[in-house]
């Protein structure tokens, strides 16, 4: 009955933590995860999201046991 929420790079610094575990019963979408995990912190415009290592949109549904991640535009390579 829980969801792991992860934050990377500038978003990790913005939120002040790299990982939060939240109650799956209290969220339906990725956006709900952000609200609950960050106590409704400001969500930067260009934020990217993933569910279980796959890119997803803010309104995507999240299931119990999922790993949800928030991060800024990627800059590898």
């Amino acid at each position, binding site marked *: 009955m829980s969801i792991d929420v992860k934050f990377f790079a500038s978003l990790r610094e913005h939120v002040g933590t790299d990982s939060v575990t939240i109650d799956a019963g209290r969220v339906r979408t990725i956006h709900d995860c952000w609200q609950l995990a960050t106590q409704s912190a400001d969500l930067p415009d260009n934020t990217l999201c993933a569910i279980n*290592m796959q890119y997803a949109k803010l309104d995507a549904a999240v299931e119990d046991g999922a790993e949800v*991640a928030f*991060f800024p535009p*990627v*800059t*590898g*390579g």
Partner: protein
Amino acid sequence: MPATIVTHSFVPWQALEQHQTTLPTGSFGACANFVGSMRDFNAGDEVSEMTLEHYPAMTQHYLDELCGTTIAQWQLVDALIMHRVGIIRPGEAIVLTAAWAAHREAAFAACRHLMEELKSQAPFWKKELTPTGERWVHNAPSEK
């Protein structure tokens, strides 16, 4: 078709030489590859050090899938991706992409595809150390 996340300095040419010995001799006529390495300047400033952060599980998953789909799309003999993470110094290799094929058209296109997809999708983030402090890198679309 290995995709490898590398935590220490590596010599891409040695990795290529080594990997190519595992492929059937005479089976490919073309190998296109690309090495991205750290410059000591960016956006007008000196850069003395860079830290590469990533999302380990997703990076590995994404790069493995990218290798597989690229091999299938261009009927490659093989493909290779290596990417550094951690603290990197000027001149060190950051990324290597390589594609082995029967002919050059497929090798060039596939190698380019690996790099473009990786740059736009793989969850890596660069932080630079300049004389005025640390800063996250933002990709300028003009600087491909």
